């Protein structure tokens, strides 16, 4: 298994390389100016700035300079947030996004599994139907429609929760809920489907025949097997929460990495954009690898290739 993990990690290197190269070259060859989008900068100052940031000379030269730095773990200096290194910005903003993302992930799992399981036990009854319809609605409503609605209701009308900002515990509630809804909905649908299949299997009949209580059958035996497909979904869910958090951060004024990414892409900041793309890609590749390993550990029938 160590060999497999090593091979997957080695395989990630060329992928990362291609992604970073593509991002850097795209942003640099775009006609936008990374130093100012509005006012014109005098030619000599421009030259100075480009020298200072290693953005002078041929594209090839700039690219090699940048890649050299990246290989040493230096993501260079942001051209938009002057005098701040990309490493520094990421170190400050990534933890914020991580807290938001993992809270949303946790909420999605708890609500998804609970409601999905509940629906499966009441298969084809009124409760099942209404939960599944709600889940489909949760999948369909875009987070940027739901979030302002909840803000209007809970923050502005009822004054229960803050509408904006980051720092205190009550400021995380609304954004985390908004971010988690579509994933909770998907997890509920997956759990229901898989639990319905598992409940048909022989070992469940055996467990019931042994005289186990229905609760024991459900929680000790069925649910354990039924949540396996969730591990397969955890990779795509992480990717979705990552991108979804960009919108939520913008809406709630949360100083996470997503906000910085959108601004840097809009302002042709080559270093910040490439830096965030590297961080996102590394995170997702590792997360997917971790999910695969978990799947292998939990389900003995699966063979990692």
């Amino acid at each position, binding site marked *: 298994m160590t060999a497999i993990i090593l091979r997957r990690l080695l*395989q990630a290197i060329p992928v990362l390389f291609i992604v970073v190269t593509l991002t850097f070259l795209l942003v640099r060859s775009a006609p936008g100016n990374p130093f100012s989008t509005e006012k014109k900068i005098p030619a000599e100052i421009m030259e100075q700035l480009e020298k200072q940031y290693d953005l002078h000379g041929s594209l090839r030269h700039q690219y090699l300079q940048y890649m050299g730095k990246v290989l040493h773990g230096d993501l260079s200096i942001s051209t938009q947030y002057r005098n701040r290194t990309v490493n520094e910005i990421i170190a400050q903003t990534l933890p914020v996004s991580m807290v938001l993302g993992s809270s949303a992930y946790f909420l999605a799992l708890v609500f998804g599994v609970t409601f999905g399981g509940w629906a499966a036990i009441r298969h084809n009854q009124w409760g099942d139907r209404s939960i599944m319809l709600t889940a*489909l609605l949760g999948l369909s409503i875009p987070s940027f429609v739901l979030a*302002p609605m909840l803000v209007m209701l809970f923050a*502005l009308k009822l004054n229960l929760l803050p509408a904006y900002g980051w720092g205190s515990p009550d400021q995380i509630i609304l954004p985390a809920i908004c971010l988690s809804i579509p994933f909770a909905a998907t997890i509920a649908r997956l759990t229901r489907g898989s639990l319905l299949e598992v409940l048909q299997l022989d070992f469940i009949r055996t467990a019931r025949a042994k005289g186990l209580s229905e609760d024991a059958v459900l929680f000790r035996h069925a649910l354990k097997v039924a949540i396996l497909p969730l591990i397969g979904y955890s990779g795509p869910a992480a990717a979705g929460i990552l991108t979804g958090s960009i919108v939520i951060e*913008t809406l709630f004024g949360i100083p996470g990495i997503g906000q910085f990414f959108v601004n840097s892409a809009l302002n042709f900041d080559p270093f910040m954009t490439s830096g965030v793309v590297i961080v996102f890609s590394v995170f997702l590749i590792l997360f997917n690898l971790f999910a695969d390993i978990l799947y292998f550990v939990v389900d003995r029938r699966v063979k990692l290739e």
Partner: protein
Amino acid sequence: MKSIHLFYRVVKKDALLVVCVLFLLAVLALAFVGIHFTGYTYDQISDASLLPPSHAHWFGTDANGHDLLTRILFGAQISLFVAAVGALVSLTVGVTYGMISGYAGGRIDSLMMRLVEIIYSLPTLVLVIVLVTSLDSPVANLLKSAGLTGVNPRLVLIVLFLGLTEWLTMARIIRGQVLVLKQQAFVQASLALGQSHVRILWRHLFPNLFGIIVVYLTLTIPAIMLDESFMSFLHVGLQPPLASWGTLVSDAAFLINPIRLYWWMLIFPGGLMTLTLLALNFLGDGLRDALDPRVRK
């Protein structure tokens, strides 16, 4: 024709599916025909800004005094167009890729599926944002030199790249089906009769994949619609004078303040968009239950 027949056969069995189809047809009709009967044009500015719904403006007006109903229907045209064309792009790529991978089998198959897995584990929407923002003006110049001044470069880029990111699921599903189908006697028979691989793929396998293609096409449309509105919401997608449901909701969301609530600007475009997505997802689910052989009944 066959796919339409298949579609009809499934839908007429379930009243809720019929409602969904009728709703979607109504949205289409309103967006492309009804828009001419609102009494306003989508780019008509007036002093009557931020008015709540009234007799003159059924859905109120926005910050520039546009009639919101007209704006929403115009946004519907763009959102539906992007979703439909993007889904066709992803369909073409996904079906071709999946069929080749499944039919070829062996090393080619495992290599092609490895590539799909790699793309799956990348933040694709983030990459699309980078692609669209940096290729915007080069493509604008390209279109200008080709004499296509009426074509919006952003629209082209978004349709193309969203289509090119949403084909992975389709490719996987199609490949799985082809793996099963190619073992069957009729494929062996065609091979024995000396038919070319291309002909077998196109004439024998493709028609057998119709059902599943219809299902995943219906599910790709809302996915792309959501992606586009997501980008437009963040101002990295469509830009004025174009409007989509995403930009309309974005206008509303950034006007939120504790003093006055412009609820109509959020509820109407957001609500219509949510209902459309819900109808499409519901339809896709219903079709999948009926047509996807992997779903057990």
